[in-house]
């Protein structure tokens, strides 16, 4: 008896250490990234760098244009992907009948979430540029393309969040004579919003760091002035990093690192905002 108890405690300690080691490994990589980037790029974080746009000479090059491009792109993405994704999730979960067609839709959406981003880039190129003749290199097209990519993630997260709302709440609302619509919009959706926002955060972070589809729709051009709207030619932060890392001029190494720092901070801010929103909507039972 005594021995067995001792064994169980030992197992518990071993497991704790294993878990800690796993966490430490991932933290170590993050720390390595941060430290090298700060060491290399901190010097590059000058006011010129933060306010100027791309330039052929390293000392004149800045990240502001790319930052603004990224911001506009993500706005377009979210404005499109969030409502469409949430409405799709609501429809599929609450209104759609269970039949083969909807099973097929479900499988397709799950597949869509796993499609490599370069393929979305090609799709954007074919549809938005070649077919619809939208402006090349614009945040509008970038945002549309990324929205296609983000939407399935939001749909999947939204469906799971809606499924997690206890049926007793639906019964309660139906029992006092709420219509299907009222049940969904007064009760189910408010309770599912924190879960939906979590999924949205994940989708947004992915979209923010995405490079490949933006390359396909022409956001890799050399653009020396910040975009003033969603139809102006622009570039995005990750694309800018990709472009600078390719430069032969050694001075751009520092610029690349500095841009990575800016991208990480930008992501942190966006995620922080999303988490703040999620916590605000969270309800306790």
């Amino acid at each position, binding site marked *: 008896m005594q021995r067995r108890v001792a064994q169980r405690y030992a197992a518990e300690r071993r497991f704790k250490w294993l878990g800690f080691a796993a966490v430490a490994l991932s933290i170590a990589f993050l720390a390595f990234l941060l430290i090298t980037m700060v060491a290399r790029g901190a010097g590059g974080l000058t006011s010129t760098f933060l306010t100027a746009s791309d330039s052929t000479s390293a000392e004149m090059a800045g990240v502001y244009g790319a930052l603004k491009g990224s911001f506009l792109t993500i706005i377009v993405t979210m404005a499109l992907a969030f409502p469409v994704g949430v409405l799709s999730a609501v429809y599929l979960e609450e209104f759609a009948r*269970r039949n083969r067609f909807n099973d097929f839709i479900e499988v397709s959406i799950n597949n869509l979430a796993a499609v490599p981003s370069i393929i979305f880039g090609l799709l954007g190129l074919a549809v938005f540029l070649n077919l619809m003749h939208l402006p090349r290199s614009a945040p509008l097209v970038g945002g549309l393309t990324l929205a296609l990519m983000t939407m399935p993630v939001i749909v999947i997260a939204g469906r799971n969040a809606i499924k997690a709302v*206890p049926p*007793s*709440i*639906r*019964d*309660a*609302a*139906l*029992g*006092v*004579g*709420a*219509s299907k619509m*009222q049940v969904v919009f*007064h*009760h189910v959706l408010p*309770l599912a919003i924190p879960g939906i926002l979590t999924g949205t955060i994940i989708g947004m972070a992915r979209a923010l760091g995405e490079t490949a589809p933006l390359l396909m729709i022409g956001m890799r051009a050399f653009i020396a002035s910040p975009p003033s709207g969603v139809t102006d030619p622009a570039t995005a932060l990750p694309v800018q990093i990709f472009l600078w890392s390719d430069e032969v001029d050694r001075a751009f190494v520092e610029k690349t690192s500095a841009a990575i720092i800016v991208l990480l901070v930008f992501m942190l801010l966006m995620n922080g905002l999303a988490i703040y929103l999620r916590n605000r909507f969270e*309800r*306790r*039972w």
Partner: protein
Amino acid sequence: MTKEKQPITTNSTVPFPSTAVAADAARDDAGIAKEDTAWTQVPEPAAGSSPITTEVPAPEPQDTAEGAARAPKMTADKVSVFYGAKQALKDVSIQVHDDKVTAFIGPSGCGKSTFLRCLNRMNDTIVGARVSGDIKLEGEDIYSPRMDVVQLRARVGMVFQKPNPFPKSIYENVAYGPRIHGLAAGKADMDVIVEKSLKRAGLWDEVKDRLQESGTALSGGQQQRLCIARAIAVDPEVILMDEPCSALDPIATAKIEELIHELRGRYAIAIVTHNMQQAARVSQRTAFFHLGELIEYGKTKEIFTNPREQRTQDYITGRYG
């Protein structure tokens, strides 16, 4: 048939005016006295429970002229329910009366909850459920395409097994129904409805100082009474209760039972219960279900003292169930 609701009579000791009824009651009592000998043979639930006979509220105005006096509030005729290919309910015919509590008893899985959920079409939400037969609310077929299910559920309210308040304030919980049905003209009107409903549910004194607190912060029994307040806030004609006390402790249960007594007369009440003593205490009509069939339906007194069917007898004496 009077459309007006009767005043609540909380105590069952109110002397009944009509001599005809008094005579009837006396006859009933005599009948029970005769059967008192039978009680001695009945084991557990009955032992020492003369309460079963005394606690049944005496005034039952409609008992005099069976069926002739007043049409029942809801009638179910040959109702069958199928879940896919499985038949959960076979040809059930029951009346729910305006001024009486009707209890549905029976072992687990006997179809009593299924039947209850037919009465306000909550089974509509279950995929693959199919209802046949005839259910009428004041003569209107509730399964007819002309019946609006939302209106129906406002007229036939429901209280569930597990207390399920919305994760909103106490006030909002009660105000939700009246709001979606547009029953209150303004904030002041709504305040009145909320107060009245909470008072009728016997919860007002406990929560009047904290109406803005979350409904889920209340105790289980209070939550259940909040759910009852929420149901009566839309002023329904019938209240369905699906084992409303099964998740509650004895004291909270006693409060709910007391509440059912008080609500009787104002609303037609149908209650599903696992607890036979509870059926005996709160109801005037009892229906006994077994394996999807209605075995016996009649006055509670008779079901409990002199059941016609052997299966009923066996169940209420605790031989199975």
